[in-house]
């Protein structure tokens, strides 16, 4: 299985290298688009000095966690799961069920989206810059916490996007749910203490996107954390693995109930 996955990834790389210029242009455009959206936030902070008590380097750290977690997590899920409803409706998905290979692993790795490298490049750049500009007293615990939080962030995005996609097995449609995800995802560019309490609760319980970046970054910076408090901060890196577990259960449940899109 590992060999097959390695082969699929090599194929993806070969395909992308075929259209090198288009690939690079697309990544450049994405980097410009994200940089512009972040610049709008920078303009805001430049004018008002802080946003809900956060200065620009702190906010840049928040943004880099969000973008890095998303870039890695979505590479392993988003386009594959978004297009799942098409293969369910056309019946192409049924052919995966009879293969001696996990349908999830086949979908994810045969469609591995290398395009997210643009997100990752920008996010790592911002991460390095913001870490040099904020004052964090680095200890072995904090370094391992930060690394675990980043991995958890990617796992969180990947499981949420996968859970939305798996709805296609039962509903035959799931694409419109992604616009709800991305509408809320944009909110994680800001510290959650900015928002009204119901929204804070929503983003830390039912749709736990706040654990992607707000909770771990606020914890690292020693800021008060809304709703879940400092204990929630310490435990934040567990949110990713927990949601992965939920996503696995939901995927299995949906596959068991899956009867094909036809009658």
């Amino acid at each position, binding site marked *: 299985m590992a060999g097959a996955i390695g082969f699929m990834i090599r194929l993806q790389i070969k395909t992308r290298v075929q259209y090198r210029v288009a690939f690079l242009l697309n990544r450049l455009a994405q980097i410009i688009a994200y940089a512009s959206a972040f610049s709008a936030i920078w303009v805001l902070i430049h004018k008002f000095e802080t946003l809900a008590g956060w200065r620009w380097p702190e906010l840049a750290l928040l943004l880099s966690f969000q973008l890095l977690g998303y870039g890695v997590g979505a590479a392993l899920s988003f386009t594959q799961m978004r297009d799942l409803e098409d293969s369910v409706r056309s019946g192409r998905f049924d052919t995966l069920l009879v293969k001696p290979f996990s349908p999830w692993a086949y979908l994810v790795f045969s469609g591995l989206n290398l395009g997210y490298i643009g997100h990752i490049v920008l996010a790592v750049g911002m991460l390095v810059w913001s870490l040099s500009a904020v004052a964090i007293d680095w200890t072995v615990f904090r370094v391992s916490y930060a690394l675990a939080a980043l991995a958890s962030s990617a796992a969180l995005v990947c499981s949420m996007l996968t859970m939305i996609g798996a709805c296609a097995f039962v509903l035959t449609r799931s694409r*419109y749910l992604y616009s709800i995800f991305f509408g809320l995802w944009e909110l994680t560019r800001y510290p959650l203490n900015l928002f009204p309490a119901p929204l804070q609760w929503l983003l830390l319980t039912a749709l736990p996107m706040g654990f992607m970046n707000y909770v771990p970054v606020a914890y690292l910076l020693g800021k008060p954390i809304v709703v879940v408090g400092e204990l929630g901060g310490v435990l934040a890196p567990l949110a990713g693995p927990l949601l992965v577990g939920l996503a696995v259960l939901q995927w299995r449940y949906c596959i068991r109930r899956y009867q094909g899109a036809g009658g």
Partner: protein
Amino acid sequence: MYGAVAQSAFQTQLAYRSQLWAHIFGQFIQVFFKIAIWQSVFGSLAQVDGVSLPQMITYAVLAGTVLSAWEWARLIQGIDVAISTGDIAVFLLKPLHYPLYLLASECGNLCFRVVAIVVPIVLTVALSYGLLPPASLLHGAAFLVFWALSFLIQFLLSLLFGLLAFWLMTAFSLEWLLQGLLALLSGSFVPLWFFPDSVTALVRHLPFAWIGFYPVAVYLGKLTPPQVFAYLALGVVWAAILGSGVLVLWRRATLRITVQGG
């Protein structure tokens, strides 16, 4: 005939109801989170650069919802599909002008979104947070003209970017690039008043400023009547420049189709 095209676009949108609900939800989240941001940064400040919090709430609704109601990305994606499948050639056989056909169809889409998304959001915010009326009758009337101009400039920019796909063969990068330019420079989120002095002179004269910033600045009475007319004229000049760009690109693009057909 173009009226029928607009009507059919309006009715097509009705067919995608679950998508519409998700979209309305997303737009509601957007407008409320922008209001939360302005409430937070204004705090106890009465005014910042001569702008008050109630004015910023009105700004968030007008620039973020009303003037952004039209989905420009769908136009670029549609052109991309028409190019890559070859459907675009069909339009050359029909007795209509492709850019005009798109304009009519997008007018239908805009009307639909005003009815389905803009009206409910404007009413909700007006009842919950309160919206300011236009500064005067003249400013209110001028806002409607600026709104039409804002749509026209958005349409021409998107069409220009979409037609560039004839040469680049990928609309993906063009769509992202335009998204970035609009997010920062149109003032749909952060008004151009708040930009650092070193760049305001430039950003206030790019065509993007007429998409979000000037229409709302006019509505709120931040421009004197002579300024309103001066900036309206400048905006029309930009629309004319973009319009001629579209015509030139479209003529060249049609030649390219013939060449590729052999």
